[in-house]
């Protein structure tokens, strides 16, 4: 069987449908009377809640920063966390824009890419986790100050802090590198797939693979 034959079978099938396919008009009219419900609306509210939460954290940290501007340990800690939550906030805004942009009249690849990026939003959090690692010191510094007005920096040895800072300095470029690597563009790399599958499941890794396929298709690579 060749493709030509396949086309003629398809046409025979079309002719058969022409003769024997009947539409249930009652059912069609019932569909028309349904109120337009959007499956994407709950997702939109969830993203709005995320953005509000992240902006509240940023406001709280900015307030903390202003109140402790003269103390370098608090300034550095607050700035590190503000950067982290600002990226999370920006990701949320990007998702809301994506949701708002979804239009059924667009071409298949554009819509499928948008829908799949929305489905795999959890991957953004996995990437953010890497960025969060170098800021690990900022949390106890701020939490102790806010909850107990306790300055852990001056209560721990000078050498311990120097060692921690050196370690954090090494971690920053490493974690930024991981952050840039763990995207759907690198899902073909075994270790990236492994991280995604172990943290978010195979459904998300498949979704990311699908987005990469769409990009490759647009470039004419597959």
């Amino acid at each position, binding site marked *: 069987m060749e493709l030509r034959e396949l086309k003629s079978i398809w046409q025979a099938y*079309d002719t058969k449908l022409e003769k*024997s396919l*009947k539409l*249930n008009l009652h059912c*069609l009219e019932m*569909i028309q009377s349904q109120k337009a419900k959007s499956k994407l609306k709950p997702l939109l509210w969830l993203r709005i809640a995320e953005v509000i939460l992240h902006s509240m954290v940023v406001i709280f940290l900015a307030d903390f920063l202003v109140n402790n501007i003269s103390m370098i340990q608090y300034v550095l800690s607050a700035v590190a966390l503000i950067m982290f939550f600002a990226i999370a906030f920006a990701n949320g805004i990007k998702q809301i824009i994506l949701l708002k942009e979804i239009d059924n009249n667009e071409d*298949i*690849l554009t819509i499928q890419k948008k*829908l799949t990026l929305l489905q795999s939003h959890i991957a953004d959090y996995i990437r953010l986790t890497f960025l969060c690692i170098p800021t690990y010191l900022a949390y106890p510094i701020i939490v102790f100050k806010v909850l107990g007005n306790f300055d852990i920096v001056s209560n721990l040895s000078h050498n311990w802090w120097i060692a921690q800072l050196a370690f954090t300095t090494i971690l920053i470029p490493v974690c930024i590198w991981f952050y840039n690597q763990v995207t759907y563009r690198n899902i073909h790399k075994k270790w990236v797939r492994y991280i995604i599958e172990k943290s978010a499941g195979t459904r998300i890794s498949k979704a990311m693979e699908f987005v990469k*396929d769409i990009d490759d298709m647009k470039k004419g690579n597959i």
Partner: protein
Amino acid sequence: MDKQPDKETFLQLIEENKRIIFKICNSYCPQKKDRDDLAQEIVYQLWKSFNGYKTDFKFTTWMYRIALNVAISCYRKEKQSGSTISFVEHLMNLSDDTDTSVETENNFKLLHQFIAELKEIDKSILILYLDDKSYKEIAEIIGLTETNVATKINRIKEILRNKFSNHKN
């Protein structure tokens, strides 16, 4: 406020193009129950988007875009959540009063088997190609350039050729 779409025009257009919906449902859903859900979901989404239909596109181009998008999205979900709307009645019924030979029926089955084994986007491209759509129209529906559509169709042909020879053997 949204303008109320013209119900009668919509019904007529769906009636004229019902075969497109059926063929897409058959290609993306092996189970009959899922096919019914998908057909209802496609018609529902078409109705919902009917106000946004721009006449600078052919109706079938617009219809393929929406129907294939709904089919791919449903197909990609691991667990079928069913349609947004669900009726006990079937939207489409295929009567058995046509005389089709056993050989033709077997050919239909084989054809669907080949289509079912393709990736989701390749399925869409093949359906459009088999429905005699031009490369330009396929490009508009899928969102690729005409050159990329031609390359993709050649690759699908190659995949099918291998399937044919495996089937013969």
